[in-house]
């Protein structure tokens, strides 16, 4: 459960950001509003499975799978 990362979400699934494993990348992600405690929703996956697009902080953010894998999360129940 605790090893979940953003790359493992399926489209439509929601999660809460916990922490980051890549310090340099985390600075960038934090600046763009991906803060621990913030809710993210997997919006869609590009054809060929990479990159992905997530809904976070009121906008759509796209990132590569490898980048998403550095974001630790825990899933929350989908309220939709």
């Amino acid at each position, binding site marked *: 459960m605790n090893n979940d990362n953003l790359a493992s979400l399926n489209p439509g699934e929601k999660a809460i950001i916990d922490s980051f494993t890549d*310090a*340099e*990348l*985390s*600075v*960038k*992600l*934090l*600046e*763009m*509003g991906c*803060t*621990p405690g*913030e809710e993210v929703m997997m919006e*869609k996956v*590009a*054809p*060929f*499975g*990479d*990159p992905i*697009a997530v809904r976070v*902080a*009121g*906008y*759509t*953010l*796209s*990132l*590569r799978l490898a*980048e998403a894998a550095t974001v630790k999360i825990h899933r929350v129940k989908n309220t939709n």
Partner: protein
Amino acid sequence: MSSHSRTSPDQKKIALIGNPNSGKSTLFNALTGLNQRTGNFPGVTVDKKTASVTRVVDKNEHSFFYIDLPGTYSLYPKSPDEEVATSILTDKNNKDFPDLVVVVADATSLKRSLFLAGQIIDLNLPCVLALNMMDEAEKSGLQIDIGRLSNRLGIPVLPISARNKDGIDELEKLLASHNDLPAYRFIDASSIAKKATDLVKAEHKDRWEDYVALYRANRLYETDENWRERLDAVGFSPTTAQAEESLSRYGIIAQHMEACIRKGSGRSPMIKKIDALITHRVWGYVIFLFIMLAVFQSIFYLAEYPMTWIENGFASLQEWCVSVMPEGMLTDLFINGILAGLSGVVVFVPQIALLFFFIAMLEDSGYMARVSFIMDKLMRKIGLHGRSVIPLISGMACAVPAIMGTRTISNWKERIITIMVTPLMSCSARLPVYTLLISLVIPDRMVGGIFHLQGLVLMGMYLLGFIMAILAAWILHIVIKGKGRSWFVMELPVYRIPKWSNVFYLIFEKVKVFLFDAGKVILAISVVLWVLASFGPGEDFKNVERDIAQFNTISGDTIFGMPEGNQFVLKGDAIKELESRKLELSYAGRLGKFIEPAIKPLGYDWKIGISLITSLAAREVFVGTMATIYGAGDDENVEPIRERMRNATDPDTGKPIYSLAVGLSLMVFYAFALQCVSTIAVVKRETQSWKWPVIQFVFMGVLAWVASFVTYQILV
């Protein structure tokens, strides 16, 4: 070249800063109109857009000097291009240091915008927040309590819609009157990296505030070796400090949002459906292919009409000049050197305008980001970015606008690779060369009942260019060392209907930059090439006219003129012969002979050598040069040139020169060699150095030589 900011003391310097997609450019356009100037920031490749504007506000005349800073999410730069905003905003001695900062915020994505605004506030710069896209925010049901937000931030907040020009007058009024520093700080920075900030503070006489000191510590760590050691010694880590700062900021932002904002309904289901289609695993590519086809077709075919007008216009102008100007070297320089060079510059304008029309539409609508999204994985395999696709495909029409279009690729390495390989795509200037050579050496017959062999070979040439571009990208990807990591962390912006004035300003700006920046280089090289082809060393060149007249007098088979003093009046074929001999004896001709040993292994003689040199101006000049050399007159009618080339034989062996091996070898050479001064000039302008165009010229030249050598040696 850089256009220097002309500021006078009474001008108020105003910097615009904001996130990408915040509508900052639209606001800049609305505030400045056609007053804007484009120059360069030293050392980086982002354009510096500035404008001096005089406005009457409240019956007083105000003079503003606007600087449009590159879009960024934070003041901690992640690339050399983002460094620009940082260096201007944090250095009081910078000549562009602003009197006032306008933070452009996207009201529909306020959280992220407030992050940047908070940094500006904490650096204690006089600033105002322009809350852009308020109309859209309201439409989606978002309610923002402007007064309360302004009170909480301690700076003026003004709702605007740059697209509809709503609130622009009010903003100008505010810009004219507001000079105050922010009322208070955004975050309390006193607890972040305290040891480091104390160290920095102690070094400076003027007592810095906590955040300014923290910010300095971060910057010093990146830029000053000595400081890095000292900061390391107190356990300072920029990533930790910046992460702490970000967390603190978003904590405050959450409170502001809670107090000032009522949430809206989110996006419409209609938009979601369109988005699903555009990024669909099948339809996404079909739509993309269709759009690229439209772009390619219009650059290729639509641009041809205005290009023909321009060429014909210049040709008429040249003819007219011949008729009214006195004969002489200066006239010749003006008509055949400068006017011809100018024509060669202006002729690119339709293609550039068309490509940037499409790029502006695709970018403004939000579609470009989706293209990157669906193409990124494929392109990444060869070291390119999702955004490289459009320049690459546009390169099949013309590399010049395509290379200018690589601006949208933010990673330096990915952008350089795209620039380096785009000229390998077969552009429209190669078409006349291919057409002539194919009709010369490829038999006109059908293959498999339905395919023209000539058509297949032509397609093969296009494929060859494409495959080589991919291969070269893959090799460069391994060879070139990257500056900074490649990110794909970016916003997928909301779909919007493109704004015509933005499209227009982009086209205007790109055409202007091309004409005045790249144009100078192209013109200069064109004149040099003209000199090479028009003058020659020694007595031979001077006496060529008399020699030909004498020769014709002796042989008696051509209509020739009578000597009038030292002048000979040549007529008919003798004129063509004169042109041919002149070219042969000119510097270009000598150069062609000089390089003959180097091109002999490729199957070329000195005549082809001359064409290789003259077509440095542009590939299609090959056809005209061949016409002159073979005395077919320099009208571009292919028929007589082809006949003469077909009949040309090697004086030693008596065999035809243009065999299949030579023809194909020559086509391969033109496919790979960088025979285009306009591309060279544009690469220089886009990379801000001669290093890359030189590398590109050499690498493509070596590639062309080797590939032609192999082709010739296999076939001969």
